[in-house]
């Protein structure tokens, strides 16, 4: 099971390294326009031709995709407000019954800023969680190696976020799923949520050792027993959050569907990694760090 995780982890890193993330306009800058055609939707080529025949817009790089039943999503490099109005006027002239569902335009500076902020936020949360578990684990450190507990937790947390990131790298490459600012929120929520599961198991391990139900000598058996004791509540805790995320995924609409998917993946992986990543690592590293 541990090696299954390792394989997934490596695959995720490879996917991320080779494809990168398919980031949306709020990260890289650019414009997205969604249009609803109530009187019959033109084809992608037809819209492309309309834009090609406009003197201002003809050299713009555009990417047009159908969405839903009557909608079209037009992605371009950043448009000024004047160019945006020209584009709308051109299309309105060609296809009268058309409504602008949404328009999102982000300058490259704003996009860069968001990238920087996202990375900073993820680092801050990781550090804050690291500090918090240091404090929580300190009282456990008489029975278990502090270093082993922290390292095992951090590795498991990285596992919980890197695999979803890898999956989204694949989705971005093969299904053109784009990452927006809300994806960062999903990653941070996964971090904050799944860490507590690990703390619960380690806390149980300490309790079992103190109650004399085992000693550090056969830590493997104690950890196994502790995992089994906390298994039902771990699964149930995860299930309730998965159920509410599933409701968002199924009913929440297009714009937050992938946000919910990221949460589902990360939270499910979090429960899995508490048992199959953090616990074995704890046993392994605890042995190494104690003579």
């Amino acid at each position, binding site marked *: 099971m541990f090696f299954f995780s390792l394989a997934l982890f490596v695959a995720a890193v490879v996917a991320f390294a080779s494809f990168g993330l398919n980031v949306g306009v*709020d990260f890289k800058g650019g414009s997205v326009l*969604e249009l*609803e055609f109530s009187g019959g939707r033109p084809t992608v080529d037809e819209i492309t031709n309309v834009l090609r025949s406009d003197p201002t817009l003809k050299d713009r790089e555009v990417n047009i995709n159908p969405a839903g039943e009557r909608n079209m999503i037009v992605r371009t490099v950043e448009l*000024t*407000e004047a160019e*945006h109005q020209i584009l*709308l006027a051109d299309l309105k002239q060609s296809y009268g019954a058309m*409504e*602008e*569902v*949404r*328009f*999102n*335009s*982000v*300058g490259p*500076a*704003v996009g860069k800023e968001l990238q920087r*902020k996202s990375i900073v*936020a993820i680092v*801050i*949360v990781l550090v804050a969680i690291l500090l*918090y578990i240091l404090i929580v684990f300190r009282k456990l450190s008489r029975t278990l190696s502090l270093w082993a507990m922290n390292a095992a937790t951090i590795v498991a947390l990285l596992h919980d976020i890197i695999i979803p990131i890898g999956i989204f790298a694949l989705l971005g490459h093969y299904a053109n799923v784009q990452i927006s*600012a*809300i994806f*960062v*929120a999903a990653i*941070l*929520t996964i*971090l*904050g*949520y799944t*860490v*507590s599961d690990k*703390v*619960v198991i380690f*806390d149980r391990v300490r309790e079992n050792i103190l109650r004399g139900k085992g000693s550090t000598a056969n830590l493997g058996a104690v950890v196994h027993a502790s995992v089994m004791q*906390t298994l*039902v*509540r771990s699964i*149930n*805790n995860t*299930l*309730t*959050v998965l*159920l*509410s*995320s*599933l*409701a*968002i995924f*199924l*009913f*929440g*609409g297009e*714009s*937050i569907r992938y*946000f*919910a998917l990221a*949460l589902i993946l990360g939270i499910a992986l979090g429960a899995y990694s508490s048992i199959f990543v953090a616990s074995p690592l704890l046993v392994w590293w605890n042995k190494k760090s104690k003579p």
Partner: protein
Amino acid sequence: MHYWKRALIIFLAALVLAFFVYPPAWNKLADKASVPHFPSVPFRLGLDLLGGTHLLYQADLRNLAAGQTPEDAMNGVRDVIERRVNVFGVAEPLVQVEGSDRLVVELAGVNDVGQAIRMIGETPLLQFKTERPVAEREAILAAQKEGQRLEEDPYYIDSRLTGKYLTRAQVAFDNSGVGLNTPQVSLEFNSEGAEIFKELTQQNLGKTIAIYLDGAPISVPTVQVVIPDGKAVISGNFTTNEAKALATRLNAGALPVPISLISQQTIGASLGADSLTKSLQAGLFGLLLVAAFMILYYRLPGIVSVLALLVYVVIVLAVYKAIPVTLTLAGIAGFILSLGMAVDANVLIFARMREELKAGKSLAGAVNEGFSRAWLSIRDSHVTTLLSALVLYLFTTSIVKGFALTLGIGAIISLFTATVVTRTLLLLMVGPRTELRRWLFG
């Protein structure tokens, strides 16, 4: 008996909050008994649910006027934009300075965003110019024939009078002329401006004074008399609407520094309404799924946890109204997610209770032991979730902020409902009768 009282207080408080969240329920009863209606406070919805536009402007602070601080300039920009935005008649427009040199403008329910952007961004520049002396004019015209001094205006020179001294502009009708009542814009200067204007008219009697708007002449009246009272009239070839628009723009004033639009997010009203329906649906299903799971798996304690969850929902919704929290799509997602997290503490407690029951403890003992042993885990999970929510909130992107806020509020309130509400209800059910039916507790 003690727990009965506490449970009753919780129930009544939840009921009052429920009426606050959904006043029609109270109002129906109130109509029959002819008592006053419950105060109605609406939920505040974000742009992505209402439809509207979010605009981010970058101010150019490189060329500040002498003695002007960047803060002054930004506050000036905000005030002017606020006045321009108020023209649209949008409910609760938001205009605020972000960081040191950015301005956020949010308009809900604007039909023509393109027009709104044009009106926000335009900087009307009103100038009064006087005739250039003939010798200079000839010199410039001659030079321009040679292709030199092209930027200079051969006919007029700037006077000291600008839109800065304007106190009021309004539409008036010229009824002195023959036939049609042509619309005009009448101007009123402050005392300083009136003094300058008086001098100008004295010095230029019989000559023309050109009125320029945004660098183009719109009216070139000839001075007939000295005007001492600071009142002037612009009579171009206006339609009534053009005159109105000009007066509005002049009243709104000029920006102290130039701004440019760097990011815009517009959501159509139909998409907003659709998102709202969908997210409410998702919330309802989320609640049902979690409740069904808890009751099926935990039986009687499961019902207790669902009651606590309902109290949680009522409190959270009341907090959203009271603060008020601007609910966005992501914010509602945060709320739905928090439904699943709110019962987590219950799961921890019930799991411990089961263990204690198996170990042969009495029901009351198991409940108390379950709480005290689960407390550390409950605390840890809430602290880590709150940490993430806090960092997300400081992250400043408005979509993410909305999510962080509802997630954080959820973590705090679920701590209360899981410990106080669940515990009170569980202890309420402990007694000789349930002690004999321990299977109810799993």
